[in-house]
């Protein structure tokens, strides 16, 4: 069939702005809104369609760490520190403190954009998790009330509308491909980005005074299914870490890229679609679980005390102030460990019989309705593919039990070499302005190291947006754009379109994933890591020049895999840097007997300068005292908020 869109290959469009936002998910939209509110001219570049794009495009069900909401009984300092401690210090104190401090402000923004954050229809009037005055619904810790249940399916369309209302130039179906740098000064600074329209092939040179990276963390690195590509991982097909790749190529500094976890989600492979199997985690917390005989599986608190009521599953243990649950929390540290079903091995030893099931029929009506209908329904990829699909198949939560396939929410057991960047993975290093190591380039959301959760994306996006706006306002002229660099990027981008009968992008992605499983699996050693790098070099030299495609859509996918090639190289190099095993980073070595030596308790950083890898390190608490540092860097924002409240 004839390609239905225009052919603009070889054509170049030039645009200028103050703040350029790369990625139109939650983080990117909030970045654009913050900068536009500061009077800056903003361009937002989105590979998909902003209305529903990003990991939270179809929805999300809970907003973590809204510590400043009027019902909260915890402080931002307490919750941020608890998360840091839970990850043994390998955590982005800055970005998560911003989330704890400003996340609730962004929820209030969302309401003004038209997103639903309150139970305005009184569907849950009288429920234990509802605040009757504010009509907020809370999740997990009903006593301390700092995580809100929200109607996330209403959020992305509202954000896209608000961006347009504020005059943001939204470039949908446009893939950012490279950062442009001004190298005329003493040190390079961000000058914008190159991009490509994924339907026409048009090349764009986007010049800006400040650039904010708001794209996804990498995926499809170890897990790839060439038939059901879109089910390879948890995040959307096109969210594969292009922002990491272009940052790596431009010399941005990364941290914690040696961390990966055993796979949790791959519905093309071992697991089921997230939230569609019986479980009691995250969206499904704290569903009643039963064994094959229909006998209730006990919940226990952190001390092993068996809980007698459903309500107790949502309360801290005696003597415990609060507990943590949510996206990055698997097995929380004792101090903040919440109620959980009894350990599976203990259950089997006591005669409980597999398979287990989620049984919502035995829960109080409000708890059943809020899991099946609100959480499953508003969480990403649940309204149609889970709630509607299972309902259409006849599932009734009052009459049926839903089978569980693994322990916890993962619905499968993966092999140790089947890995993912999940559970607070690595990313870009940042300072208190969410600036990278290159002036004029900022980062938010999943691009930051240990990014996670929608509240984090929104809060860091807005924060980076206002910092980028300040930078843009301080510059009189646009940084210089290197025309030769841009022309070389255009030639690189279009090359696969000029070849025929070459290699398909899937073949290279499959080869990369297999290589990563072999050379960078569950246990690392230098010999294998170096072999892996050598193999990638041959892929780059011998096979990348063979890639071919027939249209701009296939070209977009081809460049995703080329970005993955860079990401794999980054990960292998980061693994080489860490010399001993590290429990918190899920990092094991077969060529070192040492695990967690005290001298290694540091962040190891990595950046590319030309063809050379430059490494560094810094203390885990490099960000200093959270509260005082935040306040020192945000006097302007604190004044604005105080003014609004007055």
């Amino acid at each position, binding site marked *: *069939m004839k*390609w*239905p869109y225009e*052919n603009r*290959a*070889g054509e170049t469009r030039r645009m200028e702005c103050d703040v350029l936002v790369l990625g139109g998910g939650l983080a990117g939209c909030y970045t654009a809104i913050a900068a536009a509110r500061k009077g800056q001219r903003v361009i937002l570049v989105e*590979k*998909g*369609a902003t*209305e*529903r*794009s990003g990991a939270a*495009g*179809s929805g999300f069900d809970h907003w973590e760490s809204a510590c400043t909401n009027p019902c909260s009984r915890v402080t931002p300092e307490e919750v941020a520190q608890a998360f840091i401690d839970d990850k043994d210090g390998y955590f982005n104190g800055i970005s998560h403190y911003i989330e704890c401090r400003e996340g609730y402000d962004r929820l209030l923004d969302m309401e003004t954009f038209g997103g639903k954050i309150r139970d305005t229809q009184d569907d849950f009037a009288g429920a234990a998790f509802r605040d009757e005055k504010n009509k907020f619904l809370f999740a997990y810790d009903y006593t301390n009330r700092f995580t809100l249940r929200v109607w996330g*399916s209403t959020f992305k369309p509202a954000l896209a509308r608000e961006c347009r209302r504020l005059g943001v130039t939204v470039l949908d179906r446009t893939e950012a491909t490279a950062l442009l740098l001004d190298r005329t000064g003493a040190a390079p600074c961000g000058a914008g980005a190159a991009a490509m329209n*994924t*339907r026409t092939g048009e090349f764009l040179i986007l010049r800006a005074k400040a650039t904010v990276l708001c794209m996804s963390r990498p995926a499809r690195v170890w897990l790839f299914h*060439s*038939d*059901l*590509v*879109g*089910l390879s991982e948890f995040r*959307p*097909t*096109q969210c594969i870490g292009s922002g990491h790749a272009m940052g790596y190529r431009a010399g941005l500094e990364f941290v914690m890229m040696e961390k990966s976890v055993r796979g949790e989600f791959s519905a093309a492979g071992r697991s*089921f*679609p997230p939230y*569609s*199997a*019986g479980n009691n985690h995250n969206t499904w917390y704290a569903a009643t679980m039963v064994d094959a*005989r*229909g006998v209730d599986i006990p919940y226990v608190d952190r001390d092993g005390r068996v809980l007698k009521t459903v309500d107790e599953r949502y309360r801290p243990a005696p003597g415990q102030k609060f507990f943590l649950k949510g996206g990055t929390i698997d097995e929380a540290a004792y101090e903040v460990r919440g109620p959980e079903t009894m350990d599976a091995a203990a259950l089997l030893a006591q005669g409980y019989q597999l398979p287990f*099931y989620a*049984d919502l029929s035995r829960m109080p009506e409000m708890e059943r309705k809020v899991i099946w209908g609100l959480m499953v329904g508003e969480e*990403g*990829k649940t*309204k*149609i*593919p889970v709630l*509607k*699909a*299972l309902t259409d*198949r006849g*599932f009734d939560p009052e*009459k*049926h*039990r*839903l*089978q569980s396939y693994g322990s916890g929410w993962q619905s499968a057991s993966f092999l140790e070499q089947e890995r993912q960047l999940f559970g607070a993975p690595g990313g870009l290093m940042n300072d208190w302005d969410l600036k990278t190591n290159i002036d004029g380039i900022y980062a938010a959301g999943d691009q930051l190291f240990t990014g996670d959760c929608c509240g984090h994306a929104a809060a860091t996006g807005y924060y980076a947006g206002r910092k980028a706006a300040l930078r843009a306002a301080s510059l009189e002229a646009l940084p210089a754009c290197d025309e030769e660099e841009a022309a070389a990027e*255009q*030639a690189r981008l*279009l090359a696969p*379109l*000029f070849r025929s009968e070459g290699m398909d992008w899937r073949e290279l992605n499959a080869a990369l994933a297999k290589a990563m499983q072999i050379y960078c699996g569950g246990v690392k050693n230098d010999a294998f890591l170096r072999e892996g790098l050598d193999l990638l070099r041959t892929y780059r030299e011998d096979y990348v020049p063979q890639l071919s495609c*027939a*249209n*701009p*859509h296939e070209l977009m*996918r081809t460049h995703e895999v080329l970005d993955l090639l860079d990401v794999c190289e980054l990960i292998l190099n980061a693994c080489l840097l860490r010399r001993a095993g590290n429990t918190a980073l899920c990092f094991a070595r077969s060529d070192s007997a040492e695990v967690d030596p005290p001298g290694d308790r540091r962040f190891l950083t990595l950046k590319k300068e030309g063809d050379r890898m430059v490494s560094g390190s810094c203390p885990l608490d490099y960000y200093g005292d959270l509260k005082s540092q935040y306040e020192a860097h945000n006097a302007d924002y604190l004044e604005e908020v105080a003014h609004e409240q007055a």
Partner: protein
Amino acid sequence: MSKPEYEARVIPCSARPLRFDATKCVGCNRCLEVCQVDVMLPNPQKGAPPLVFYPGECYYCGSCVMACPNPGALSLVHPLMNQTKFIPMKDPAQGG
């Protein structure tokens, strides 16, 4: 720079994620426009359902169905292997 020719070609896969009911679909292309993965192309025949050129890239988010103005015109179906099992409640007397 010379211009390469573009060609649209279906890349088949083992599943059929999106199913249109041509009697209900009015070909408004709302589904196509909200799809962040861009798995569909507009049908050359005006008013007819979009064409699913890249079914294997679908990530099963359901945004297309949410955007569809005509209920039943478009449905999303997970691959058979991903349809989780559920069972009826047992007799309470037996512990269920």
